[in-house]
């Protein structure tokens, strides 16, 4: 069973996206599509023909596979329901962030490949956001890693840390990082199709059919993975340390509750905040960097 915990992320990530959309719709007074809508969308896209720009090169065709495969590889590193994860020797939390960076790198290249201004704009903005997010994300993870004495995610999760001042600060920074990485309001608007305001969608503009399905699915997976990392690192209580099926079942139940909480939080943030101007991002992300820095200093000063 522990060999297949990454399948939870692979299979359930569209559902989480559906739930977030449904919650958002309800909070905004709309009925909204059903929670299984992302699955229908993916299946529909997979069955469609593709229209590809004649300007593009092989990079454009390789990118969906690289993005999907790298996100899937990342999901094997992360412990989902048990810390006895057999694949965690592959890498640690630093490797995970760099695997995400690999996907982002190729996605940004594919944005430039079609030779349109929108793709380039999306790439440029995505890389800029990454510049602001990555140090902050790394620093907030460092705090957790230092207090657990390891960068291995399963060990951080297994160390059973409780809330401490430094953790709360690091968690706040990490939450802002998640919002930025998943392209949500107030950083990016996932629902927009107005070319000038798009970041993530801008890069995907030229994709259609099967490739678009892969890119979308990878995006859902990345979102759920980031949620999972957050719960693994910052509130691991309830995750199983063994492989007995009963323990795994209860761990799964707790995990779902935690992820639903994260999804609800995202929907709440998106419904109550407005998207901010691109050049105001440094203030919010810089603020998050300060939080992460404070969390590290707090840990060093107070040792907790």
């Amino acid at each position, binding site marked *: 069973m522990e060999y297949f915990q990454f399948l939870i992320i692979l299979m359930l990530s569209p559902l989480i996206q559906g739930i977030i959309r449904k919650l958002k719709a309800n909070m905004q007074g709309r009925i909204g599509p059903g929670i299984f809508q992302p699955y229908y969308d993916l299946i529909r896209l997979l069955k469609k023909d593709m229209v590809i720009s004649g300007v593009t*090169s092989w990079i454009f065709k390789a990118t969906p596979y690289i993005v999907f495969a790298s996100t899937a590889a990342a999901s094997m590193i992360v412990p989902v329901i048990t810390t006895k994860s057999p694949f965690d020797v592959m*890498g640690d939390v630093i490797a995970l962030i760099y695997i995400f960076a690999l996907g982002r*790198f190729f996605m940004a290249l594919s944005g430039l*490949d079609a*030779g349109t201004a929108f793709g*380039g704009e999306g790439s440029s903005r995505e890389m800029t956001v990454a510049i602001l997010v990555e140090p902050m994300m790394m620093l907030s993870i460092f705090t957790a890693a230092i207090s657990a004495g390891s960068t291995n995610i399963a060990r951080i999760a297994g160390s059973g840390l409780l809330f401490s001042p430094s953790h709360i600060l690091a968690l706040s920074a990490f939450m802002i990082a998640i919002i930025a990485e998943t392209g949500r309001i107030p950083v990016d608007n996932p629902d927009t199709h107005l070319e000038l305001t798009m970041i993530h969608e801008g890069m995907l503009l030229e994709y259609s059919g099967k490739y678009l399905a892969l890119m979308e699915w990878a995006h859902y997976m990345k979102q759920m993975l980031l949620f999972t990392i957050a719960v693994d690192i910052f509130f691991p209580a309830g995750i199983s340390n063994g492989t007995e099926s009963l323990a795994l079942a209860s761990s799964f139940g707790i995990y779902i509750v935690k992820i639903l909480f994260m999804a609800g939080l995202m929907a709440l943030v998106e419904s109550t905040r407005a998207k901010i101007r691109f050049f105001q991002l440094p203030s919010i992300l810089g603020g998050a960097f300060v939080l992460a820095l404070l969390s590290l200093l707090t840990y060093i000063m107070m040792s907790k």
Partner: protein
Amino acid sequence: MEIESYLHIGFLFFFSGAMFSLLPGQKTKTYIYILSSIGAAGFAVFGLYLLFTEPRNMFSLPISSVFDFSFCGDGISGFFILVISILAFAVSVYSIGYTRDLDNKGLMGFLFNIFILSMYAVVLSGNIITFLISWETMSIISYFLVTFDRDEKSAKAGLVYAVMTHIGTAFLIVLFMILYRYTGDMGFSGIKGLSSQIPEDMKSLVFIFSIIGFGTKAGIIPFHTWLPRAHPAAPSNISSLMSGVMIKTGIYGFIRISMDIMGPGPEWWGIAIIVIGAVSSILGVMYALMEHDLKRLLAYHSVENIGIILLGIGASMVFRSSGMLALSSLALIAGLYHTLNHAVFKGLLFLGAGSVMHATHTKNMEDMGGLIKSMPYTGLFFLVGSVSICALPPFNGFVSEWLTYQSLLLGFKSTSITSKIISPLGGAALALTGALAAACFVKAFGISFLGMPRSCHAENVKESSLSMIIGMGILALLCLLFGVFPGIVLTIIQPVSFMLTGSHGMAYKGIFIGISETLSTLSPAAILITMIVMSISTLIFILTVGRKKRIIYGDSWDCGIPWLTPRMQYSAAAFTKPVRMIFKRIYLPTRELKVSYLVKPFFVKSIEYSGEITPFFEKYIYDPVTGFIHKLAGKVKILQSGSLHLYLAYILITLILLLIFGT
């Protein structure tokens, strides 16, 4: 065979390569690089031997009673010889095709071979005088190579390089004089044995001078200003060697003096190196991001990567000063691993840039575009280099940066509060550097190789010749191998770190590498295999679920405009605009907008826009100093009037003064 015979083979081939180049006749000149590549292979074997044997004297030629000309090697030399040889081999193969259209093939062949030999000489030097002679030879030969293209820009770059490198050498001479003054020995091993006689404050002075002297060669900020001028000015095979390995001799010198000879120092040495490393890496990559000249961009990335190497070395020095030798060894492994990696991927990228320039006759990436279709191999190899330098898995840059992160994170085990705070911040700096580098190479690769040709330069270009492709291919393959099989590289590096720290470090080898202290493991091979398996299963999944497999080729989305022109693509300047805006306190950008009207203010005839960033270090540090020197020189000039009588008067006055005060 004896170990030395490989050295002799290597030397013989390089030397005969240099001599054959001087023979008249141009036809066969490109094939002397075959000799160089055999020489490099010989040196590579020799370097490997040195790593796993005891230190030994190679060659000693007494000149006078005071000093002799001596070369000796140990593990540290062996490692750097190996690094130089790997790149020298690939660049030699590349040069067969690259130099074919050169005007002055003979001179190039001669300088090329002597340049590589002089780098070997630097890392093999056994005493002060030999070191300084080799160091100067290397600097002067590289000066000739920088000014190889006889245009004004190269001449100016060469001048800046010559001045900077000699300032660095001046500091080195003072450094060696201090060492000699207190130990009375010229040989490195002798000085090392007596290094306890050097007082502590003198040791610190030597340390500071070694940062300035070797840092100038390595290109750390603020001594980097020559680097983005000189490296792009040289022909690309030479830029590749300069950026890939020549600046590493600075790292070698630093390790030799500050770590090997002087032994463990106080903690602030290491902290200073971490801070210098962090500043160099962040500012280096930031300036790189604003460059649209492909080779200048790569040159700035050398500044960045030297910074990353120094992060590892600095962490190693911090741990060593507090006696945590295992951690010190780990951090040193990280730094040396990155030294090797940087040589491979930066060499590759410069060769790629050389191929692109060879084909398009431009350095400006705003004039390129769409090259991946006309130059598929160059494009692929440049992409491999880009992915490696951005430290993305599963390529080599990732492994060394991962090790650097681990060593910086382990800084919390240190006893002092300063290093507890500085090391994780060094890690955050590395994360920022990584993200900036990724943005930079999305720009460099995306704008030059993807999209539509942006100018006539990029149309109808041809792929490079076979030897150039092979030269790049070797390095691209090494980028992958050093990334996927880190165990092999660790076997090569561990003798060096063991020699310097007395501990094997904690990275265990094999298909996985891991740090026993933090129980963190990494296996790039597993990541690669997982990704391949996932890609194949995705492909199968798509083929089974999706019914139709038709792909229709159309136009890019153009908002309904009848056609998209290449000028409507995103440009490199536009791509980096957000970063320029966000970090404007660092870049201090200036812009100029010239609008000319037919009828003001409605009918615009033309708009001219130019924007640039302020080169902070040149403008606020170097220009005032050079200005002051110029002014002083102007004042001194009064003495030198050109009148013979006045000069005779000076001699007379000096003589009288000497007679009065000399006794």
